[in-house]
């Protein structure tokens, strides 16, 4: 059975949501709104409790994500996320990754990039 809703993840772009579970640095209302609307969007996604924790453990899941091709990540500052992956021995590719910052952007701004309406996000230049 399918959820009956369109796949908002665009053409082959993976979505990753970081819940930043072990600190209050991401405003809780932004996290909650992003997660709620992501889960309602019908898009496929991966959600992790805390990328920092995974980086410290060099969790193989990070290599899995970094090697997945085009990816949009909702977490915090792009420079922090980039070097967290690097520290885990799983550097993100220079192209095809877009990092959205839930510490500084509103939930609406994050969602607009994370789950754009089908086709709207296709072929867009990713940045790191």
């Amino acid at each position, binding site marked *: 059975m399918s959820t009956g809703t369109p796949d908002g993840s665009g053409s082959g772009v993976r979505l990753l949501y970081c819940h930043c579970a072990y600190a209050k640095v991401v405003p809780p209302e932004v996290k909650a709104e992003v997660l709620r609307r992501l889960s309602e969007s019908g898009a496929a996604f991966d959600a992790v409790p805390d990328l920092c924790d995974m980086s410290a453990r060099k969790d193989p899941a990070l290599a899995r994500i970094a090697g997945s091709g085009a990816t949009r990540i909702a977490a915090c500052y792009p420079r922090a996320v980039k*070097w967290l992956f690097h520290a885990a021995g799983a550097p993100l590719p220079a192209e095809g990754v877009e990092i959205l910052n839930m510490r500084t952007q509103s939930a609406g701004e994050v969602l607009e990039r994370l789950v754009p309406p089908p086709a709207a996000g296709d072929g867009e230049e990713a940045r790191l």
Partner: protein
Amino acid sequence: MSRTQGTNLRVILYEGAGSEALSPDERFRLLTSLLEDGFEVTRPANGGKVSPADGAPILLLGRFRELPAAEAGLHVHDLSGKDALEAAREVRARSGARRLGEWKPWFPVIDYERCTNCMQCLTFCLFDVYGVDEGQRIQVQNQSNCKTDCPACSRVCPEVAILFPKYKNGPINGDAVKQEDVRREAMKVDITALLGGDLYASLRSRQQEARKRFSTERDESRAILERKRCLKELGKELDIPDEVLMSLPSVEDIHSRAERAKAKMAARQARSQTVKDSRPAPTEKEWGI
């Protein structure tokens, strides 16, 4: 198991063929409670891409019309049964997956686009957090040794190359480094040079002064208060916890730490030539991942 070892249990929230869809509220509540409890959650949907299986233990959660058979490394739980979070915790315990929440992941991360490999962080850090890799390049190697909420080493880095992603302010939290941040760092070096040494030396001399005052002061309680006041001031200035300031190492300590780091690196190198990864290659599962 150390605080930085082990694999999370990965939960697949399945709503595909052979199962019933969850209500938006139920899905959101489930996702939130699983993430808060330290589980990775994957939601496959409509053929969209998610991370492939990699051998980590998996729990398949769904409201199944017919319960799929569990197999090695794959656990199944029907959402009509007992509480999903409780079931996930049980599987985590049974599968030996890691339990989170015992450590706030607070540790430095190096921005290698800025780092010049000057080693000031390695010599400054009191807790053996830093080391060097095979190519003598600085690296963070004992993350869980880092003193929670202490950003001290980022203050001694002259290149603003050390991040603490969970720190409150930029650029230490990963915010873009602005020209004025670099200028401030340069000024910090200049000021400490004027004081007759680097920042570390100035911290140390302030600590020694505080100690001297403590040992010569007849009124002990007043001396303790004074020392506390000095340290508080310095700690506030740099956001460094008192206990870190109280235990700055001696120059000899620093040298022996650098030697230990080199020896450890050599031992690791020797080991890595003899140990081979014997785990089987991961297999793809058919649950949308």
